[in-house]
């Protein structure tokens, strides 16, 4: 064993998940004949499973982070096995499993925990190696797995269990309507792009022959033949690939506001029809090359935008994942495992500690703390007893509860929040309209000019009128309007993505640049979203280390969020054992350490045996969370916990204020901590203790007064207000539902990316204006020439390309972020050392 311990190196952290290795632990797995240290039995078990499967190469290939597995025991909890076994029942399988005649079943799964392509490799190999599995393919983009297996040889539950064993979680996947729509949208867009690409090149080749022929001389019958060939090749592009532009243009005309789709459609449609006329009558000019190339370039831009939009688009299943798949039904004194969907109003269920509540209900017996963080974003659980109502999707922390169900399915509170979200989406100010305003004027101007030119030529020389009007449209349209904005937007979006801000809606850059207010949620957005040890103030003779050791020993076996920072701390210290621990729900813990009796928790509870009973008023200050540690005779220490603000929060807010934005904090929390954090971060406008509805109302009243609001948040309770603001940004740690409904996601959770993004957005506006300026300048020259009928097609083509190059080159300047505030070194705080 000694030889195996030698490679272990504490500085490197856990070989599997990269977390710090606790000082006095010794978890080792042999990987490729070399002993590697792990941080916990969970990682050890997963690494062992990977190694046993001969898939160690995973560690060589991975580029993303690996998460520590959910269960920290060597075995998978029985409860989970029982839940997974539910998926073997035919009645449940019929929703997501299809079976072919020869007994091969097929299903799609959503896999959680995929971070990079190596995960896909690991999962595919691990699952395919199982006996009875005939096919397993995993999609890295949407984290879906396609499985087929022989039901006689292996059960679905054992496949799911083996996925758990290598550290991932698989859930059956029911594609909802929206998901199916997204998938077919992607395929359609890919097909459109492919058609446009292939035929655009073919048409260009033929067009080259025509241009060359014009200069060197070419026989007329060949010109006609090439034109007909071009017509055949260009037709699918116009009819199939360019269809989205036409339908959008028709919608725009119906709703009465002009977007770029109108001149694009006019140019594509007009040039195409004119070219057909020219081909049939063997006169005039053909523009097939312009038509196809123009369509192809525009489609590339739209395709990239769509990809970015879909990246976080997993709305349908995120809500599903929050509600548990199974419930323990109490019927005639027996406990039955049933699928959560089978529950009815009036059923009595049992919710064990650590389990998610399957539906809204009222507590019949029991007393426990409920973790409502998924719903409200608050990390401290709420204490509930019999008679209290309880919301589906929240998590039971401490004691078993018996619940009578009052609401199921669409009537639950969670569904109510989703409905609020839909309403907010409808009320959302159409930022896209603002984006189109300038373009709208421009479009109108171009159309008007073309019309005037057309009418004028009708009087001068009717036979030229059509051709000249068309050349006006073709010459002005492409670079002037269509390239100027999208290229700048594409480049800026890409730059921001590389720097940790993922933009999912097209209007974000514009509305970021024009924002006047920025509103933050508190917990999890401005703060870290979990408790950390802030201070220990010994009251008696005990030293700092002694008190902390006693506290850690007492809290070691509690799963309450308050105990979590102690767990982290305990790993860094000499372990002290506590015995006879009793948990007093909502009050604190009691136990024996080194033969002495200690209590930790609320001051009044902990000091009950002391000569004087202490209360919160005696705490060193009134912000944060104070716990009292006391023996059975005297108070020992005050231990302060707080949710610390994110590291760059203060400098970020300062910078935002200096950039001219109104900074506000909007939070559901009504405790004293709100004022303290606002003071620490220097926020003047604070609104606390508000419900999701009130948050939405506040944002809407701001917007009614002309403000342009950016909302930054993370919880499910923030979703309606995220949807209601002009621009919404979700933190990377936010719930999936919040992320899908936000306009942008701050992937890394680094707040200082916000001012950078704002700067880039403003620069983006400037560059778009320069591009449009250049386009106007170009048109001022090209338009009169085209209007007087002096531009030959090849001249127009050269002019167009040169002008496009200028526009694209200018847009590429957005690929660099201003390197003003990139200072903070990577996370140092994780290594807490005992003083």
């Amino acid at each position: 064993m000694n030889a195996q311990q030698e490679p272990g190196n504490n500085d490197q952290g856990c070989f599997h998940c990269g977390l710090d290795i606790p000082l006095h632990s010794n978890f080792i797995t042999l990987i490729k004949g070399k002993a590697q240290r792990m941080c916990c039995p969970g990682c050890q078990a997963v690494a062992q499973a990977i190694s046993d499967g001969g898939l160690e190469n995973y560690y060589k290939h991975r580029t993303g982070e690996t998460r520590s597995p959910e269960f920290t025991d060597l075995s998978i909890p029985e409860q989970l096995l029982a839940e997974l076994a539910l998926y073997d029942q035919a009645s449940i399988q019929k929703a997501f499993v299809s079976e072919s005649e020869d007994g091969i079943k097929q299903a799609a799964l959503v896999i959680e925990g995929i971070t990079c392509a190596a995960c896909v490799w690991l999962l595919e190999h691990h699952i395919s190696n199982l006996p009875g599995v005939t096919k397993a393919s995993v999609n890295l983009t949407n984290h879906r797995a396609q499985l087929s297996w022989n039901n006689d040889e292996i059960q679905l539950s054992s496949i799911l269990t083996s996925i758990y064993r290598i550290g991932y979680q698989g859930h059956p996947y029911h594609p909802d309507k929206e998901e199916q729509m997204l998938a077919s949208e992607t395929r359609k867009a890919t097909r459109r792009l492919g058609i446009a690409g292939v035929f655009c090149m073919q048409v260009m080749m033929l067009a080259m022959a025509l241009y060359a022929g014009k200069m060197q001389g070419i026989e007329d019958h060949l010109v006609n033949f090439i034109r007909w060939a071009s017509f055949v090749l260009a037709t699918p592009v116009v009819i199939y690939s360019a269809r989205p532009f036409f339908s959008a243009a028709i919608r725009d005309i119906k709703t009465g506001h002009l977007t770029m789709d109108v001149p694009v459609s006019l140019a594509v449609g007009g040039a195409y029809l004119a070219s057909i006329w020219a081909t049939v009558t063997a006169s005039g000019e053909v523009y097939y090359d312009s038509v196809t190339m123009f369509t192809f370039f525009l489609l590339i831009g739209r395709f990239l935008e769509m990809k970015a939009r879909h990246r976080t688009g997993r709305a349908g299943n995120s809500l599903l994942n929050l509600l548990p798949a199974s419930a323990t039904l109490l019927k005639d004194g027996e406990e039955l495992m049933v699928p959560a969907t089978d529950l009815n109003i009036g059923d009595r269920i049992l919710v064990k500690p650590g389990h998610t509540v399957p539906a809204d209900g009222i507590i019949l017996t029991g007393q426990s703390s409920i973790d409502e963080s998924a719903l409200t974003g608050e990390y401290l659980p709420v204490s509930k007893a019999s008679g209290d109502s309880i919301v589906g999707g929240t998590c039971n922390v401490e004691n078993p509860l018996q619940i009578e169900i009052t609401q199921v399915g669409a009537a639950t509170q969670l569904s109510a929040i989703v409905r609020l979200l839909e309403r907010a989406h409808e009320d959302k100010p159409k930022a896209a309209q603002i984006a189109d305003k300038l373009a709208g004027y421009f479009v109108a101007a171009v159309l008007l000019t073309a019309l005037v030119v057309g009418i004028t030529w009708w009087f001068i020389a009717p036979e030229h009128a059509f051709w000249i009007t068309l050349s006006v449209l073709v010459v002005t349209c492409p670079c002037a309007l269509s390239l100027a904005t999208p290229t700048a937007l594409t480049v800026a979006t890409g730059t921001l993505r590389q720097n940790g801000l993922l933009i999912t809606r097209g209007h974000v850059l514009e509305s970021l640049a024009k924002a006047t207010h920025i509103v933050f949620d508190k917990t999890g957005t401005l703060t870290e979203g979990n408790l950390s040890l802030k201070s220990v103030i010994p009251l008696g003779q005990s030293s700092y280390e002694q008190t902390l050791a006693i506290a850690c020993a007492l809290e070691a076996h509690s799963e309450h969020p308050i105990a979590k920072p102690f767990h982290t701390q305990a790993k860094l210290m000499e372990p002290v054992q506590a015995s006879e621990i009793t948990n007093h729900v909502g009050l604190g813990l009691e136990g024996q350490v080194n033969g002495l009796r200690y209590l930790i928790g609320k001051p009044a509870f902990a000091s009950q045996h002391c000569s004087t009973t202490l209360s919160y008023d005696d705490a060193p200050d009134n912000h944060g969370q104070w716990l009292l540690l006391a023996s059975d005779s005297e108070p020992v220490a005050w231990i302060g916990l707080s949710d610390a603000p994110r590291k760059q929060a203060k400098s970020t807010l300062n910078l935002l204020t200096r950039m001219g934005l109104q900074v506000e904090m909007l939070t559901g929390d009504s405790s004293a901590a709100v004022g303290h954090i606002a003071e620490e971060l220097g926020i003047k406008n604070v609104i606390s203790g508000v419900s999701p509805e009130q948050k939405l109302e506040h944002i809407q009243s701001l917007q009614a007064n002309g403000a342009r609001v950016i909302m930054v948040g993370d919880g499910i309770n923030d979703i309606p207000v995220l949807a209601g603001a002009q621009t919404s940004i979700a933190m990377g740690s936010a719930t999936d539902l919040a992320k899908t409904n936000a306009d942008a996601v701050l992937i890394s959770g680094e707040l200082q990316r916000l001012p950078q993004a704002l700067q880039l957005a403003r620069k983006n506006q400037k560059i778009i204006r320069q591009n449009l300026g250049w386009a106007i300048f170009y048109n001022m020259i090209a338009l009169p020439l085209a209007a007087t009928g002096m531009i030959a097609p090849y001249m127009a083509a050269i002019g167009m390309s040169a002008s496009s190059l200028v526009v694209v080159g200018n847009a590429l300047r957005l690929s660099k972020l201003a390197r003003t505030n990139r200072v903070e070194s990577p996370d140092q705080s994780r290594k807490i050392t005992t003083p």
Partner: protein
Amino acid sequence: MNIMYLLIPIAIVFSGLAIWGFFWSVNTGQYDDLESPAHSILYDDDEHLIPDDAKPKPLKPQDKTE
């Protein structure tokens, strides 16, 4: 020059075939995941295919950099 009358239609037919192949690949889901296939080629899970005498010699214990 009459060869053009043959070559251009052939080019059109070829483009048609290319599009048919492209549609087939899109419809069978080959474009659904544009990320992981690019990485998978880099994963050497073909070690058993390399002949023993062509494998790089294992490092001697004293060469280990630890």
